[in-house]
């Protein structure tokens, strides 16, 4: 459950973005729809605890993010969130397996090899477990990034423009994948995008 109240953010004194109050239920899917520069990435980062020093309050599963110290916020992020970005941002120096193990390690959770097999299986890339990132196709790399986001069974998955660089066919596939794994892992899915194609998939809209 994500709730915001009179949230606003200013990059500098001249420009302040005000966000409408939100209330996102557990296990639902939402689209944050808006043009470039409308502040959807800012809102997503605020919701994800990647950006602080805002006005107003953000409550996630009963915790007010604005009241957490930086260290507490780090821990909270690690356990509650999975992030997916437009580019996959996998760590090139590590194999698929190690990239995935990084998620529980950095979040301070138990590293479970079975869980990795399970998630890779869900995403249909079980055979790539020991591959290097450079050996993966773009589509496979994106699946690994999705696998990494859901590995810790986060309550919330935040995705920033996951489909905007993809053609129709791949857009369809990735959005299906996101919806499926979010359901499989019982996570709330919030996608910030300007990609109108997703409207047909996800009906809950937050227009900025």
């Amino acid at each position: 459950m994500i709730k915001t109240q009179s949230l606003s953010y200013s990059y500098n004194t001249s420009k302040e973005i005000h966000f409408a109050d939100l209330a996102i239920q557990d296990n639902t899917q939402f689209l944050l729809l808006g043009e470039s520069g409308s502040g959807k990435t800012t809102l997503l980062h605020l919701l994800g605890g990647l950006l602080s020093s805002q006005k107003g309050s953000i409550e996630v599963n009963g915790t007010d993010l604005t009241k957490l110290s930086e260290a507490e916020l780090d821990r909270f992020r690690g356990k509650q969130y999975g992030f997916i970005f437009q580019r996959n941002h996998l760590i090139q120096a590590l194999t698929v397996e190690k990239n995935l193990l990084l998620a529980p390690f950095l979040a301070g959770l138990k590293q479970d090899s079975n869980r990795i097999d399970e998630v890779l299986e869900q995403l249909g890339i079980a055979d790539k477990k020991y591959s290097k990132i450079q050996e993966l196709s773009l589509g496979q790399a994106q699946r690994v990034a999705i696998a990494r986001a859901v590995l810790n069974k986060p309550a919330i998955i935040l995705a920033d423009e996951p489909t905007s660089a993809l053609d129709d066919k791949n857009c369809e596939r990735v959005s299906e994948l996101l919806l499926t794994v979010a359901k499989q892992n019982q996570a709330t899915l919030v996608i910030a995008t300007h990609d109108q194609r997703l409207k047909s998939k996800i009906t809950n809209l937050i227009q900025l």
Partner: protein
Amino acid sequence: MNLLILVISYLKAKPLNTLLNIILLALGIAVITILLLFNHQLREKISDNTKGIDLVVGAKGSPLQLILCNVFHIDFPTGNINLKEAERLAKHRLVKNAIPLALGDSYQNFRIVGTNPSYADLYQAELATGVWWSADLEVVLGAATAELLKLEVGDTFESAHGLSKEGHAHEENPFVVRGVLKKTNSVIDNLILTNVSSIWKVHAEHDSIEMVSKIISDTSVLVPTHEAGDSTKEITSLLIKYRNPIAAIQLPRYINTFTSMQAASPAFEAARLFSILGVGVEALTGFAYVLILISALSIFIALYNSLKERQYDLAIMRAMGASRTKLLIATQLEGVTLTVLGSLIGLALGHIVLYAFTLLVAESQKTGLSAFVFYKEELYLFIGSLVLGMLCSLIPSFQAYRTNIHKVLAGS
């Protein structure tokens, strides 16, 4: 998964860079290690070999040569001194003990020293097998001499004049081995000891042999088998132990001024030798530190650049729950891993090079240099390289610490 695996994966992802940094540092550390081993062991050898010898008295010439020849046995004699004059000095009230040395011959590059058994006492050298000589032309071998020449008690050999194999051979007077000394790790290991009169006998012209049969009433303090006050005989030098500290001031001046002989202090000449060698050692040490400095710079640049490339990695790791401190530690660990590997390889390389040197250069075996000695300075080198790694990664790790997740991931 842990930080070390992460760091090593990063290092392995850039093998050439990593290799260059490690090799640069390893070379610098290796040069310092070699110098350290050389210098330390040389100093130890010198102090071991000069122990108990306060003053060396010999013919006039270079004092350094006198020491090198009579204490370390690596240079030629400055000349000879008269036995009668040497005896007078040996009885001087400031002299506690005087050991005669008669040099001039060698066998297979191993020097034959005419002396008395108290010379062996200087180095606490005890017999391993056999007995001390009881007659002329009987010898006791140093441990290394016996081992390298493969000589045993009862074997005989003919000496050669001078210090080289090619010297004129004294074929008519073969030496017989009576005993072998235990290893002492000092210069005596590489010598062949005999009495002074053996040396005279080998060098004597045929017509002077009749002297030997004379009855001796007053024996020499230096050569017990010989008559006292014989001014026709000569020895190479006297090793003197002072009776008291005043001797250190009076005796050298007395000898240099009032006799035809020269006195040289091993401690003083060794210090002088070191100050001459010191220039070379310092130049090499300087070179090694320049290498280390370059490697530090190279590590810093590599980390600094890779931090820029890795800003997305850092931001995503923060997003996944890594604290600022964790990233700081990871970056520090990367620098420290490089320098620790570099210094460990460097230390090993130093010992290996010295080992190869002792194997390949025959002369170094005589000096008794060992590659398997470790000094606490090597630990300091290791700790220093740890600190160096932390210093190199100071700025990069601070950059990692300051990673702004939002700015990087919002991708401006």
